[in-house]
Structures are given as structure tokens and as C-alpha cells.
């Protein structure tokens, strides 16, 4: 009898764990999550080890605007994420410094650049990035506490 009770209790606990994991998965994958950023490419806006709150709803409905900071999968390594600012949307003309030419961002793509243009691997290196790689849009910085600030321009 005690054994049956133990089994029932275990099932109950397992059920709660599964529910919690699933709710967390949905929240972090479809609503919003926290990202630790590293690297110098977005200085001075963002520094290494800042923690950002990002939301996944705007990219899903293609409501991205020029100037938004986004988290995207790196085109050259899908396991790595990049954090850049959208410089141009489909149809815009962008000027590339080297080689000196201009090009139009194709349909379904965006042009991403880091704020620290002297130390950033971005669209100037690998060209326009497909919108399908964009995971989320940065909303605000939540850490360090004395630098909490909104990072949207609107």
C-alpha cells in the first residue's frame, strides 16, 4: 500500500515537472527570454556580459524596423548567435565600404551591422542575412543594475 502511494506521488511530481518545463520552453521560445551578450561588436551600446531581455513576437510577425537590435543565428554557424542592429530592410540600398559599391537588400533579407563598426563581423562580411535567421528583438538591458535601460528606439 505504501508502495502504491509512493508511485502515485512520483507520478504527480513528474507531471508537475513536465508541465513546468513545457511552460518554460514555450515562454522562452515564443514570448521572451534573457540573453547574455559577449564580444565587442556592439560597443558602446552593449558591453560584454550585459544581460538583455528579448522578445520573439515582433520577428514572428515581420514587424522589424530599421534601428532595432536583434538576436540572430550566425549565417556561418547555426549554433552561434549574433547580436546586431538592423541597418536596412528589403529594398533598401546599402553602401559597402570595401569593395566600394552599393547593393539592394534582397527580398526576405535584412542588413545587420554592429555599432562598433571597426570591430564587428556583420553583413559587410557575409552579406544580407535571411529574416528566417532572426530569433528575437532586444527590448531592454536588465543587468548590470545601474545600467538598466530600454534599447528600443520607439
Amino acid at each position, binding site marked *: 500500500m505504501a508502495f502504491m502511494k509512493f508511485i502515485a506521488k512520483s507520478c504527480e511530481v513528474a507531471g508537475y515537472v513536465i508541465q513546468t518545463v513545457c511552460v518554460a520552453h514555450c515562454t522562452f521560445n515564443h514570448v521572451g527570454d534573457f540573453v547574455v551578450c559577449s564580444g565587442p561588436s556592439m560597443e558602446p551600446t552593449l558591453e560584454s556580459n550585459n544581460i538583455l531581455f528579448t522578445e520573439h513576437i515582433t520577428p514572428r510577425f515581420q514587424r522589424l524596423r530599421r534601428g532595432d537590435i536583434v538576436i540572430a543565428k550566425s549565417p556561418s*554557424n547555426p*549554433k552561434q548567435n549574433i547580436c546586431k542592429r538592423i541597418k536596412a530592410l528589403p529594398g533598401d540600398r546599402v553602401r559597402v565600404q570595401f569593395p566600394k559599391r552599393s547593393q539592394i537588400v534582397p*527580398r*526576405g*533579407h535584412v542588413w545587420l551591422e554592429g555599432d562598433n563598426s571597426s570591430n564587428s563581423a556583420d553583413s559587410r562580411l557575409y552579406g544580407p542575412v*535571411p529574416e*528566417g535567421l532572426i530569433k528575437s528583438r532586444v527590448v531592454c538591458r536588465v543587468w548590470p543594475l545601474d545600467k538598466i535601460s530600454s534599447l528600443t528606439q520607439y
Partner: protein
Amino acid sequence: MWFRGLCKSIILGVPIGITFLDTVGYVARVEGISMQPVLNPDSKSNNDYVFLSRWAVKDFNVQRGDVISLVSPKDPNQKIIKRIVALQGDIVSTLGYKSQYVKIPEGHCWVEGDHTGHTLDSNTFGPVSLGLVNAKASYIVWPPNRWQRLEAKLPSSRKPLTTAVHHT
């Protein structure tokens, strides 16, 4: 009282369902003729339904010949189903792309539909980033008489000219 119970089970059940679809896989209908003759062999009859395995691509481990679904590089709302022809480092001979031979850049792959000439694939938009790969099509599940496993195979004419060795 029964209504509150129903609401509660929906609120708890929906996240479990979404998580299952996100991590294990789901069934989707194939539209179009780009993968003939493997999928939708007869365009007049009903469309095929395939099981798309999300689990199989969680580490972006795809092989040449796999049938995969990916987010279209031209329209992020659209998913397309194609076959992987080449992986990073391979050299492919293209069919009507801007250059005759293409070396696939790092983190990219070359995808083509089986129905050459009636498909919008890498020969139009070039190599695609592996990050766009959404799922691997592993089974045809409907109609029942077409139930079969989708094998990884490439016609010898579409094999990459040179294949890079990958250390995984």
C-alpha cells in the same frame, strides 16, 4: 464546475502540445510539384502528408541526400521542402546559377528539388544557411498506401564534384 476544469486542462495542455511539436516533430502537407516523383507523384490526386522530425535536426546534423524542410530565404513565412545536395566545403556544379561551380561556404548547404526545372531551389537563391533548416522529413504518413520511409539518396548526376570530409 466542469467548465473551469476544461479551461484548466486547456491552459496546461497547450504548452505541452507546443513543446512536443517543437522538439519531436509534426505532420505537414506537401504542396507543389518540386519534389516529384518522391512526393506528390500524381499532381491530380491528393497531396502527401509527411512527418517532419525536429529531433533529427536539433544539432544541425544533416547528411547529403536528406529531405528537409527549411524556411524560405526569400519569404520567412514560407517553408519549403527540398533535398540536401551538398554541405559546407563541397563543390557543386550548378544548373543555371550565376556561376557554373560553387564552393559551399561554411555553415551553409546546397538544396535542390528532385523535379529539376520545376523547382525554386539553390540554383535560384544560392547556398542557404543551415540555421534555416527547420526539420527533416522522415516518413510519408498519408495517404496510407504511400506510407514509406524517405531514404537519403542522391542521383549520381547530382552528386557534388568534390566532397569535404567532416569531423563531427
